[in-house]
């Protein structure tokens, strides 16, 4: 046990005044890392999105960008490494071991902790997915470093520190957080918050295979079964190019059919604001916003949604936001690109009809 240090003055002032003085042992920490989720033979897109963001941070710092791939199966991991290079990674650390086939906290955090302690990155980014959050907390606690969850913006400040910005208090405010005296600086970022970088076919990099000594017998947690989601809409909503969503302005759950009809005419997906989940009008995985899904579609149509800040932060990345609302002063018109002051229950079917007609006419012509 260490001797207790002198008591600190009670919550002395704010932490903002504290100096960023990096202890000697952390000065060798270099490079930006992205943990790339690889499961069931697939790379989770959030890993590639973070490579896009990580590339900018690494360039600003003048260091390398590395992807970290943990899993089982040589060929699949090799393919995933190619994907990582083509999305901007300079090098990829690969850990291939049969015990890593399905995600489990224990072996994964052992492996990632070992990689961090061996190769010493200064920044480590993970997706704020269920896997990423499960893993990040364990690793940060083991190596005793700072972790900023659910960031929406990352930057490098003048002192070469990671400035991680995240919504606070349900999204009404944003705050920028630093990790002062420890390394790596860890952050999780939700899927779709960062734009997918363009793929550069043929771009290659280095591959560092790291061997680990894991034994299945030592791992007490066993996977009994994995039941894949039958309703693949969970993934689709976040990644759909076109999303139509409804809010309380639709007045009744039956009117959600107009939202679904327009979405289907456009080949897109549909969702809604949080109160619709609370009222039982739609399942929770269709909720869009701070406590639901973040989306980044090319087209977002919001019908009868007021545009509260918690909703706004989930849709701001959309290229084109169309709002239909009866109230000309609704906050959604502050961030929508195109607004229509109209009854959504009437306008939605008219829109569906207009698109259907246009598309069928064109199809006949073509």
């Amino acid at each position, binding site marked *: *046990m260490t001797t*207790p*240090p002198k008591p*600190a003055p009670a919550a*002395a002032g704010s*932490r*903002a005044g504290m100096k960023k003085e990096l202890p000697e042992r952390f000065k060798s920490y270099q490079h930006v890392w992205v943990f790339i*989720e690889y499961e069931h033979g697939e790379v989770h897109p959030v890993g590639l999105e973070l490579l896009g963001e990580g590339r900018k941070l690494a360039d600003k710092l003048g260091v390398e960008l590395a992807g970290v791939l943990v899993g089982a199966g040589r060929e699949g991991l090799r393919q995933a490494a190619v994907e990582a290079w083509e999305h901007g990674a300079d090098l990829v650390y690969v850990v291939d071991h049969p015990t890593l086939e*399905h995600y*489990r*906290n*224990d072996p994964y955090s052992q492996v990632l902790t070992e990689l961090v302690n061996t190769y010493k990155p200064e920044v480590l980014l993970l997706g704020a997915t*269920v*896997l990423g*959050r*499960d893993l990040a*907390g*364990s690793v*940060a*606690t083991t190596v*005793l470093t*700072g*972790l*900023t969850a*659910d960031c929406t913006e990352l930057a490098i400040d003048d002192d070469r520190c990671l*400035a991680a910005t995240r919504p*606070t*208090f349900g999204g*009404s405010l*944003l*705050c*920028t*957080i630093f990790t*002062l005296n*420890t390394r790596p600086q860890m952050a999780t970022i939700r899927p779709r918050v960062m734009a997918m970088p363009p793929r550069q076919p043929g771009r290659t990099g280095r591959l560092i295979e790291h061997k680990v000594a894991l034994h299945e017998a030592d791992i*007490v*947690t*066993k*996977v*009994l079964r*994995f039941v894949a989601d039958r309703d693949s809409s969970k*993934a689709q909503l976040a990644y759909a190019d076109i999303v139509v969503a409804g809010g309380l302005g639709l007045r009744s759950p039956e009117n959600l059919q107009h939202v679904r009809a327009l979405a289907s005419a*456009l080949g897109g997906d549909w969702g809604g604001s949080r109160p619709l989940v609370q009222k039982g009008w739609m399942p929770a995985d269709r909720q869009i916003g701070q406590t639901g899904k973040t989306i980044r579609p090319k*087209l977002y149509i919001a019908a009868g949604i007021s545009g509260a*800040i918690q909703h*706004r932060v989930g849709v701001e990345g959309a*290229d*084109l936001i169309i709002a239909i609302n009866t109230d000309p002063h609704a906050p959604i018109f*502050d961030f*929508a690109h*195109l*607004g*229509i*002051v109209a009854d959504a229950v009437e*306008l939605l079917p*008219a*829109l569906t009809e*207009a698109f259907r007609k*246009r598309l069928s006419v*064109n199809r006949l012509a073509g």
Partner: protein
Amino acid sequence: MHIVVCIKQVPDSAQIRVHPVTNTIMRQGVPTIINPYDLFALEEALRLRDKVGGEVTVLTMGPPMAEDALRKALGIGANRGVLLTDRFFAGSDTLATSFALAQAVRKIGETWGAPEVVFTGKQTIDGDTAQVGPGIARRLGLNQLTYVAAINAIDLEAGTIAVARRAEGGVQELSTKLPALITMLEGTNEIRRGTVPDVLRAARAKIEVWNAAAAGITEVGMCGLRGSPTVVKRVFAPTPRAAKAEQVEAKDRPYEAVAEDVMERIFAAQPAMEAELMRTAAGY
């Protein structure tokens, strides 16, 4: 069995207002509640106790007034409340919070018997990190089960537990050894109403109030501001978009005309979209 549930008292965010000029959160007069996500953990703990017998201890770290949250939990049916409160804890980030809570769980174990299961909520509505649970698990060497949707089986003699948890792209069924830390997924159960005897007992119950020393924490440098590697540098409001939405006039026009208008503007803004839609439509 002994079960510990970590609950946090949080401001009722539905009622939080931000000061329009200073951009600070106006907490005065904002009522506090038990973090809504923690109620799923509490209910699951009570169900487990009802099934196999034992005791549920609720633990919170916060200011003295956080005692209210514990009393509420006792009124719902928990057996004992422990409040961890000390000025050393002020300004804790997730690492420092999980350190202090882990120490308190250890002390609770020494005092009333080691817990087989420690529960936390999925996340808080104010901190909102979902990291404190994993932090506690790691520090105490508990097997970590996050986003648990259901406890499928528990065998105290064999010291095993089996759960279904939300994983990426599906539901993972896991078995592991006790002691374990569970973070409970929301919407998985419904919090019970306390019985009249519970509510009466809660009003009179003695809450255990521990400072750092009482919880056996000697390394106060691991707590509060000093034990927190992260620093909040700046708090600010999101910037409004410079221009308001361009409007499509809808008054006194038939919906068909408005819809045509909207569609044309969508295609004008997204020139590639029409062709893309055509391709998808042709595939029908």
